[in-house]
């Protein structure tokens, strides 16, 4: 019995370490969101979907949304509307490399929020949109 419990603990720890990068980042964001808004209840992929698809006057005064470059279907290849550069699918289901490096995730959230919203995303917005991306293509 004790052995089984130990094995379960190890398995649990190991699997925790597997997806831990993005999960620990989401936890960081949760703490930040809670600190900024005490009534924060958790991230919401539906809110994230709105963040992703809503249009705003962004870079170069153009009316754009995240979907302008990443397209309406996150399992498809996208294209940078300013340069024509091809963008690999954003959905981690279609493209397993996505969301694997938190450094990269942070960088692109910073850059792309500024492109579309002309400001950095709040912790809640980042978490919402990440949850939306994670759940896309499922």
């Amino acid at each position, binding site marked *: 019995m004790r052995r089984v419990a*130990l094995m379960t*603990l*190890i398995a649990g*720890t*190991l699997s*925790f*370490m597997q997806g*831990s990068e993005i999960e*620990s980042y989401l936890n960081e964001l949760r703490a930040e969101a809670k600190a900024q808004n005490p009534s924060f209840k958790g991230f919401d992929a539906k809110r994230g979907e709105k963040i992703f698809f809503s249009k705003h006057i962004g*870079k*170069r005064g153009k009316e754009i949304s995240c979907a302008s470059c990443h397209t309406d279907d996150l399992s498809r290849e996208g294209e*940078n*509307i*300013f*340069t*024509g*550069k091809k963008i690999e699918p954003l959905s981690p289901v279609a493209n397993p490399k996505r969301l694997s490096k*938190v*450094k990269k995730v*942070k*960088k692109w959230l*910073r*850059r792309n929020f*500024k*492109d579309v919203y002309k400001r950095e995303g709040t912790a809640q917005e980042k978490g919402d949109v990440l949850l939306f991306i994670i759940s896309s293509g499922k």
Partner: protein
Amino acid sequence: MKKYLTYGIGAILVAGLSITAIADEDREYTKKSGAYFAETEYKSSYKEHENGYKEHHEKERYEHEDEEREEHRYTNKQRLMGYKPIYVQECGSCHMAYQPEFLPKRSWIKMMKNLDDHFQTDATLDKDEYKKIYEYLVANAADSKSVGGEYEEIADSIKPNETPLRISDTPYFKKEHRKISKELIAQKEVKSIANCTACHKEADRGSYDENEIIIPNYGRWDD
């Protein structure tokens, strides 16, 4: 026996949990990283910007070592070639990773000093990437080494008092592309004159031969 097994597993668990808790490769150098790191590592080039960035200043002193290093940088070919994939990965994520040989040092330096407003986008990098890309660009700039072909033509056409940020702003480039209609450039398959690979099929390899050109909805170029 059982006791040691238990202690062993316990030790691994503790180690694993601590690594997970402590390990954080991310460093928040995101705010104005472009100008910030230019300031700390390459002081001689940025004296005039010192005042602006003093509040973000980390006192890393490489004063004399800097000059000595300068010489070694350009002879350390292999190390610099290792930086190329970083440049291609970071700078080639939104547009083609233009060959550094297209522009003089001063243009790349100016570009790297203003990454927070890179053609109206935030293109800032973290400290490590910034340093490597900076070195790679400066070492391979048109006036840092001997260049030939298109690179030489473009470099020779740039006036010494000018610091173009766009390759397409150089006199030679403009001359070579003067006969291409605005419509062919604006079409969705091309979008912009900065999109070399749309027509120059071997541009990623650094080749811009006329016989490799295929303009979408037009065909080959022949003059």
